[in-house]
């Protein structure tokens, strides 16, 4: 029997000193997204197209050592600043479509964000996680 891909769910929570609105907008503003979500300080940020409406799609291309890595998906829910749901696919690594839910609630002068990633496949992660971690660590260090 061939195994059916099983969905795994991963959830993280993090507090921010910035307002819920600012944190929410960082996910949809093309100028901001390119600086953190799929940014590569050593590589080049490629094309970023964001159609920030329900049913709208996005394309974020990062160029790593001459290789373009496309991140594509569609916005399923946009409820500023509380909730954002979008699909995510990285065709270079997997044809699997995963779902990311971002929930933000005001907390004091800042906010708390809970991210839920559903449908993540082990194959896909194994090929990408270490590279992404390295890239993000560098990004954090430069900022």
């Amino acid at each position, binding site marked *: 029997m061939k195994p059916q891909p099983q969905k795994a769910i991963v959830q993280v929570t993090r507090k921010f000193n910035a307002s819920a609105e600012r944190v929410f907008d960082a996910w949809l503003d093309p100028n901001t997204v390119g600086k953190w979500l799929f940014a590569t300080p050593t590589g080049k940020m490629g094309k970023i197209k964001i159609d920030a409406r329900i049913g709208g799609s996005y394309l974020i291309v990062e160029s790593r050592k001459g290789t373009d890595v496309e991140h594509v998906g569609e916005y399923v829910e946009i409820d500023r600043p509380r909730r954002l749901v979008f699909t995510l696919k990285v065709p270079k690594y997997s044809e699997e479509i995963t779902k990311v839910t971002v929930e933000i609630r005001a907390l004091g*002068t800042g906010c708390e964000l809970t991210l839920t990633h559903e449908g993540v496949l082990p194959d896909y992660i194994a090929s990408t996680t270490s590279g992404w971690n390295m890239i993000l660590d560098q990004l954090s260090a430069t900022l």
Partner: protein
Amino acid sequence: MPRASSLFQFTWIALADPTRRSILERLSRGEARVTELARPYSMSLNAVSKHIRVLERAHLIRRRRAGREHFLSFDPDPLTSAAAWIEAQRSFWMSRLNALDALLQAEDVTTPKTSKRKDKSR
């Protein structure tokens, strides 16, 4: 022997079912015969055997033969791998959110918001 990534998928499949989770829970308290395992469930021995095969395929169950008897025991190793994978995935998103936080704080330094009240708690 499945590839490591297939084994991951077998682990998820095996753990997705409440009956299989409860079989593992029982075996975590010690080895048991198939008939003993089947007793608490209102399903046929055959149905329970199918669940056991799914667990064996995921390497979550070991089978020991003693004469005509088959004893099953729990092997937690695949769970450790699955937990490590989940942790790697969590740390990936956490580092993303750390980068976002660093970016927003950098913005605060370069373009202070005069209209917003500043952090009074410090």
